[in-house]
């Protein structure tokens, strides 16, 4: 038995090696046909994909819209901000979602892309509850995440090493944090940082690791972590809405070309008072 298994394994290796020599064309995803907007009345299908930060909000907005117009079916998918931009630009979905600004390079690639900001979200700098500091300056936050400040005593705290917690590369929250705090050409986040793959995991890690610091979407703040004031401004929704709080990112929906039909109706609903109320209920900042 062992001999046969061994031979099989060998065969597999050979097969893998053989297929490696043959030039395989790169897979090209064929764009799925987008749904057809309804002519009369409100019925039809919308497919949305992209940012996982926008996802729960989009689901709520889709639910409320479908409750009003039972003929409309909205499918909300994740994938991340980059996926949102790409799939909207390529037309594989009706609506893309990105929890960050659309990059210039992306707008160059997809010039037809229209960007609609449906909500804003603050990013809070959070620390373990026992960290005896109430706030930091944006520069201090940058230097801590860049690994230039490694001890709390350098920012007025106790003589303890700082444990940096971050999101993984590719996350919209991390991209927004890097753009707004680290700067576009700024230093990368220190590579000894503990990386966690979701807002929830970052919160748990910061809550249970003494001397740690991390960043979280406002929607995930609770009493298990301590939100630090940045440049003297408390991390509250009011401060973010007024523009005083310095780390606020847009939540964008992206549509290729001018919105029309059922997509336009959904967008109008989101930007209406009713839709914006849902935005606030979900812990984000209304755009109106």
């Amino acid at each position, binding site marked *: 038995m*062992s*001999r046969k298994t061994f031979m099989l394994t060998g065969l597999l290796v050979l*097969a893998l090696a053989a297929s490696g020599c043959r030039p395989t064309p790169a897979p090209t995803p064929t764009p799925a046909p987008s749904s057809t907007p309804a002519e009369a009345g409100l019925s039809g299908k919308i497919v949305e994909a992209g940012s996982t930060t926008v996802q729960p909000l989009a689901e709520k907005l889709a639910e409320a819209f479908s409750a009003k117009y039972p003929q409309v079916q909205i499918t909300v998918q994740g994938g*991340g901000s980059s996926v949102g931009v790409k799939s909207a630009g390529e037309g594989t979905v009706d609506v893309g979602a990105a929890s960050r600004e659309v990059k210039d390079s992306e707008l160059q690639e997809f010039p037809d892309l229209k960007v609609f900001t449906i909500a804003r979200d603050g990013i809070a700098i959070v620390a373990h509850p026992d960290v005896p500091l109430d706030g930091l300056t944006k520069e201090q936050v940058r230097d801590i995440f860049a690994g230039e400040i490694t001890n709390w005593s350098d920012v007025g705290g106790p003589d303890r090493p700082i*444990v940096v917690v971050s999101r993984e590369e590719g996350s919209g929250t991390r991209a927004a944090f890097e753009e707004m705090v680290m700067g576009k050409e700024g230093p990368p986040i220190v*590579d000894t940082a503990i990386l966690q*793959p979701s807002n929830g995991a970052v919160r748990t890690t910061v809550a249970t690791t003494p001397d740690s610091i991390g960043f979280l979407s406002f929607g995930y703040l609770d009493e298990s972590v301590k939100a630090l004031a940045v440049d003297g401004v408390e991390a509250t929704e009011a401060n973010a809405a007024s523009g005083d709080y310095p780390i606020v990112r847009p939540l964008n929906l992206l549509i290729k070309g001018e919105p029309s039909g059922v997509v336009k109706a959904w967008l109008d609903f989101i930007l209406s008072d009713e839709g914006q109320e849902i935005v606030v209920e979900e812990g984000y900042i209304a755009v109106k």
Partner: protein
Amino acid sequence: MPIRYVIDRSARYLLLLSALVSIFVVFLIGLFTLREGLPALREIGLGSLLTGRVWRPQRGEFGLLAMIAGSVLVTMGAMLLGVPLALGCAIFLAEVAPDRVRAVVRPAVELLAGIPSVIYGLFGMVVLVPLVRRVPVPGNTGFGLLSASIVLAVMILPTITNIAEDAIRAVPREYKEGSLALGTTHWQTIVGVTLPAARSGIVAAIILGVGRALGETMAMIMVIGNSIIFPKPLDNNPLTLFLSQARTLTGNIAVEISYATGLHESALFATGVVLFVLIMIVNTTAHLLIRERAR
């Protein structure tokens, strides 16, 4: 032809078909992973992928060395902790334990295999990590190779214990009787006769444990810290290496795949190829070893 012969014949082909399907699936998965990873293998090059120390997809740097080191080190750690424990457990169950004790211990060990890995991860994150953090070494966050190795050691325990126990039980009774008749003690017989006779099965058990350890994902993500660094000792004591954070190959894929596009996505599939080959090398080594011993 009598109906029972027809049934007999078709049963054989049906069984053959099931066997073929499983081979086909492995084959397809391997082929698919390779195909998706090929653009990265071509653009980055296998050499720089395997030896590059820096992984920064956003800046176009793709090096897997840190993750390979992470996977290998955490597996070694888990083996150091888990193998003696599992073998002890297997010997106890096969040779020492009275029936009533075995009736309790054995299902308990088997139960370990049924616990979802996310539960192990959660346990590690809220119980083990804070414990490990108490080790007074600067830079020790609790997240890292040690916590991951402990979690993994427990996870591979049932795999190794079950197979090793079967191997020990399969040793012919005459061997033991012969040894005991020569006047050896029970322990001398276990060490000198039973274990050497069961060696190939025990090696197979350990190698299967290695394979399981290399492939574990969820629990690792939760306790190892996922930092993209080449693990190194935190101070002068080389053992503090195990307090360093790390990232495994599996974790690299799982953490980043949901956001990856283009070359980044392909590089993650290439990570999968590396993992695939690594596990194949492990399994092939196991079979070679077993064959050698059997001769």
